[in-house]
Every structure is written in structure tokens, then in C-alpha cells.
């Protein structure tokens, strides 16, 4: 056992300086286009209609890079991660600033969103230091994070989980699938048609820091992104 303790100590601290400082390491984010294009061919090539004349509907973008690569358009790309849009009136009051319990629900994701959520416990991100804890039971949870397109079989499960949570509670939609069905584009309802979404975090998948930004935004410790909610 002592060998392990030593090993741990030797590794030192790798945790990101965000939100206190800036995080600029390479490979922390897939990015999202910042501004659109007026090139009709590029607009038409976007598989999820995330581009319209000059604008980007970021909640739709699935990070396929088609606009930038295959179409060769010089897209302005945001390599950051502060993307979460938050409903102003939903920001949690002060008592929640120190310890928030989160239940994560996979409503039909491909595994990438979930993998990024798992990274939140990674020493690189260590969200415990910020007072965020993942709880196995909805009865203890203040926040529900939902990832994935809402499948028919998961919808009743989602409702039960949400109803089991005490108020006040908040709902965070993570990733293009939960926001807009992403690439799947079914005509079934998306999360916001079923339940009131308080925070929307775009990306396919949103990187861990984007999710942390969302959590900080709902607890009033960071401003949300000023992109409009679709």
C-alpha cells in the first residue's frame, strides 16, 4: 500500500487551473465554429443544418469538421470551452455554492459524452475541488445531467429519475444529441420538449471543461455563454 502512496505523491498535481486561471493545453476541446459563412455550398454540406447565412446554431453542431475540411471553408473556430448557456432565473442560490450533488443519466448517448463526464473525476479536472459530487441516487441529487438522444425506452426512466429528485432541482443537457438529437435527427421529442432544460452545453461531445463551465454557471460562479438558446 505504501508503494501506492509514494506513487501518488510522485505524480504531483496535474489539475487544471480553470476556473481560477486559464487552461490552454492542447487537445482539451474539439472546438466549435464561432461564426458562420455565406457560402451556400458549405451551408448545404452541413449534415445537421447548423449553418445558416453567416450564423451558427452551435447546439446542433456535431463536430464533423466538414465545413472546415472537406468544404475547405476558412471557418473561425473556437478552441475554448465556455459554451454553456444558462437560464438566468435558474441560477442556484448561495447555499449550493459549496456542495452540489449530481446524478448523471444516459438517455441514449454513444458513450463519448459519458466518457467526458467520467473525466470530471480525473485528476486533471477533479471536480470535487469545486464542490461537485456525483451521486448514485436521484433522491440526493440537486442537478440532473442528461446526455444522449432520448430513446423511447429511456423516456419513462428519465421521467422517474427527475420526479425522484427533491426541489429545487436543475436540469443540464449535455451534448448535441440531448439538445437537438444531433446527427440522429429523429422526429421524436428532444429533452427540452419533455422537461425544462436549465443549462445547455453544446458539443459532440462537450469536453470536460465545458461541462465544468456549465456546472459553474448554474451555481452562479461563472457567467454563462451569451449565445442565444435555440
Amino acid at each position, binding site marked *: 500500500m505504501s*508503494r501506492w502512496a509514494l506513487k*501518488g505523491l510522485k505524480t504531483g498535481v496535474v489539475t487544471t487551473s480553470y476556473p481560477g486561471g486559464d487552461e490552454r493545453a492542447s487537445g482539451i476541446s*474539439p472546438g466549435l465554429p464561432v461564426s458562420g459563412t455565406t457560402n451556400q455550398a458549405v451551408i448545404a454540406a452541413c449534415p445537421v443544418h447548423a449553418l445558416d447565412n453567416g450564423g451558427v446554431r452551435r447546439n446542433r453542431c456535431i463536430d464533423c469538421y466538414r465545413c472546415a475540411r472537406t468544404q475547405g471553408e476558412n471557418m473561425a473556430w473556437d478552441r475554448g470551452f465556455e459554451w454553456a448557456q444558462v437560464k438566468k432565473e435558474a441560477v442556484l442560490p448561495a447555499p449550493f455554492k459549496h456542495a452540489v450533488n449530481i446524478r448523471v443519466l*444516459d438517455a441514449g448517448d454513444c*458513450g463519448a459524452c459519458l466518457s467526458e463526464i467520467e473525466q470530471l473525476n480525473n485528476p486533471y479536472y477533479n471536480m470535487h475541488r469545486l464542490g461537485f459530487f456525483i451521486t448514485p441516487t436521484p433522491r440526493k441529487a440537486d442537478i440532473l445531467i442528461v446526455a444522449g438522444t432520448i430513446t423511447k425506452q429511456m423516456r419513462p426512466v428519465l421521467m422517474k429519475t427527475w420526479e425522484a429528485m427533491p426541489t429545487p432541482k436543475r436540469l443540464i443537457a449535455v451534448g448535441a444529441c440531448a439538445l437537438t438529437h444531433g446527427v*440522429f435527427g429523429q422526429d421524436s421529442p428532444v429533452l427540452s420538449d419533455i422537461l425544462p432544460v436549465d443549462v445547455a452545453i453544446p458539443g459532440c461531445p462537450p469536453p470536460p471543461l465545458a461541462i465544468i463551465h456549465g456546472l459553474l454557471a448554474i451555481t452562479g460562479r461563472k457567467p454563462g455563454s451569451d449565445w442565444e438558446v435555440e
Partner: protein
Amino acid sequence: MDISQLAENIHEFFPAASLFSGPESLNITCDKNVAPGVCDLLFNRAHCFFMGLDWGQQADEIHVIYLFLGPGNEYIEVQTGTKKTDPVFYSVSQAVHAADWYEREAAHVLGVDFTGHPKLGDFVTHNDQPPTRVLDAEGAFIMPIGPVFSGVAESIHFRLETIGEEVIRTVPKLFYKRRNIEDLAVGRTSGDVVLLAERFAGTTAISHALGYCMAVESISGTDVPKRAVFLRVFLAEMERIRHHLGVIEGICASTGLGVAASQVAVLHEEALRITGTVTGHRYGFGMVVPGGLSLDLPDDACLTAVNQVDDIVKRLEGIERLLVKTTTFLDRLEDVGVVTKTDALEHGMVGPIARASGVCADCRRSKPYGGYDVLRPEIPCEQEGDGFARLRVFFAEIRQSTVLMRRALENAGAGPVFSRVTPKAGMKTACVESPRGLAVHRVRVDADFRVQHYRVFSPSFANWHGFHTAAEDFAFQDFPIILATFGLSVAESDR
């Protein structure tokens, strides 16, 4: 027995079956009452590997196709049909147990019957009867787990039948996450469907995109440029390393070895960042497209990546050395979750799990595709089939993959990474060895290059089918460990 002898054999026993041999393929069309016999011969006597069950519908006919890999890894298709007015087939799963789940799925989705199948019914949508108990003892009960359970876990439901401490058997129920990807693909352009293929399992997106693209490219007869071929190997092996790091992290965490789990987690995140740096995306989405790659990767960036991965592996080996000396850790893995070789073969299990049980199959060797014929990777295998054997396979494969990454880079040379794909109608099957095992993609496109039919036999589906063999007669607290050593994806199985 080689494929021509096999064909003769079938012809001798089943004279009514019509046979058609192509290059590296054998198509057998037969009456539905003959199909179980043919499959029995293929599976039990010729020891062909059962890959999966595909289906199709014409005006008034439904047909099913049982796919096997022949003695020389040829594709063998056994096709049989029935009128829609008489939607009944004869089950082959008595003889070919690996086909059991496939028939259940087909029965439910197509609304057909497989006479002789032990358990048909609601397989996909969960409206079926309450669970049945097999155990008749005092205090016996069924412990339900999921679909929402644990901290961060994919949605799946388990029924653990128990008399208290010891679990007698485990029944997994999947398909909560069924997104119907294969159906959604129909009618979309072949270029758009690769985006769906990536999302069968986001954590192994590159492999699935590769499988799909290989099928499409072989339909159109596209020659993928050499550089793209080897850069794809480079990416696929990087993905394998990243995936296995995630599994090893999960195994450490499941045994309560916090420091080790964090140590591996650090490496996992670094691998994600390397992928992100090289491809722009942490999971490599959008890289593999029909015809090659969407982006050329600069050599120096790739070289840096390999060196960084080497460093990760070096540090991982340090952790491994400590792990194999930590008895509290080994005690929880050894003799836990054992899959015997017989079970693995019977259930058609694949990938690292099968390879830990003495089934040394890997289609990078047995049916080499894009570049692997040159690279000829070593395939690490173990015999015991327990949790520790699986862990050793994961470690060994990571080591092997770094070697492959470097060699792929050496072989890549200069040149383009994309060639145009000319639309052509057709149907093809492609096999890739994804990190979780053999993934089979079957694609049919029309003359406009729109997808008409898409079917994937995923490694997770095959391995979930065999999962129960490892989860019998164990203590409750071992359940998360068994689960972790399997390292399966639910999304990939549910599709």
C-alpha cells in the same frame, strides 16, 4: 477442411441447397427447414465462426442470412426465406448457440417466429413479462440493478438472482438505448452515414467508421491511397490504446484501488488530449471518410504523438509492475468472472475477452485489411479466462499497439490521403478488429450511393450474450469487477 471441400460436403448432405462460390466467399441458398442443418454443419463440424444474422424484405418475402467465417476466413452466407403470410423460420440456435440473441432480435424486429427457439418474445422494447426465477430456495430473490445505477454508467438493466450473499445467475437486459441507427441510415447519402457509424460507440468511433468506409470503398472499387491506409492504422491503434486505458482505469476503480485508478486516469486523459491534438477531436470524430481521411496528418505531429504514447506506455508499465505485486488487487481478479474457452466459442465471443479465454482470433491477422497484411501484428492471448487474464490481455495489447503505431507511420510514405469514391450500386461486408473485438459492417447502396441497408454485428452484442457465463455463482461485491473486466459498451450493442 478447406472451403471447396466444405462446399462439396454441404452439397452431398443437402443436395437441394444451391451453392455459389465467389472469390473468398460462399453463398448458400436453401429452404428454411434445411437452414438449421447447414448451419449445424458449418458451426459444429467445420468450426466456422458465426458472425451474425442479417435480414431483408422483398414484396411478399422475408429472408434471413446467417453469416459465418469459413475455414480460410471466407464469408459464408446461408440465406433462407419465407412468405410474409407464413412468417415462420426454424431456429438454428439449438445447434449454433451464438445465433441465439440474433434470432431473438430478428424475431422481435421482423415479427417472425423461429420454431424451436427456447425463448422468443419481447427482446427490444421491454414490455415483457416480469422476470422468472429459476431458484427455488428459501430467501431467494431477484436483485434488479439499473437501468440507472452507479455513478456514471451506461443505461442497462441486470437481474441478479441470489439467495443473499451469493449470486447464482445474472440476466442482462439491453436495448434501453436503442437508437435505431441502422434504420436511420437508410436513405441517407453514403457520406452522411459514416457520421452515424462513428456513433455506434463514440469511444471506438474510428474503428466503426473504418468498418463502414471499407464496405463502401469495396462496393465502389476505390483504391484508398497508401498514406491514408497507414494513417488509418495509426489512428485505429491509438484508439485501441486509449480505449484499453479506460478499461484498465475502470478495473482499478472497481477493485477500490483509488491511487491506481487515478494514475491510469491521468494517462487516459493524456491519450485523449493526444488524439485531440492530432485529429482535432478527442475521439477522432470526422477523421475517417469514405475514400480516405478528411485531413492529412503532418508527419512531425504524428511522430510527437507516438513518442508521447510511448511515454504513456512506459508509465503504465510502472503501474502494471506495482499492480501485479498488490495482492489485495490480484485476489479480486483471479478466478473471478471466468469465461471458459468452450463458453467463449459457443457464444461467439470476440476481442480481448475471447483472447483471454484461449480463443486467439483477431481479424487483423486472420482476415487482414488495410495495412495489417504488411504489419502482421502479434496477437497476445491468455488461457485462464478470468478477470486477471483479461487485464493482462489489455496491457499486452496496449504494448503491441504502440509498436503498430510507429510502424504504420514508417510505412505511410508521402502522398494524398483521399481519393474520390465513384458511386456504384452494390452490397459488401467488411470486418474490422475494433478495440472491443470483431465488428462486421454490412452495407448496401444504390446507384446514387444512398444507403439502402445497413447492419452491424458489434463485438459488444456478441460479448453481452456471453456475459452471463462469467457472472454465475459469485459474491455480490464482485459484480462491478466482472463488469469492469469486460469493458463493454451498451450503446454499441443496442445500436
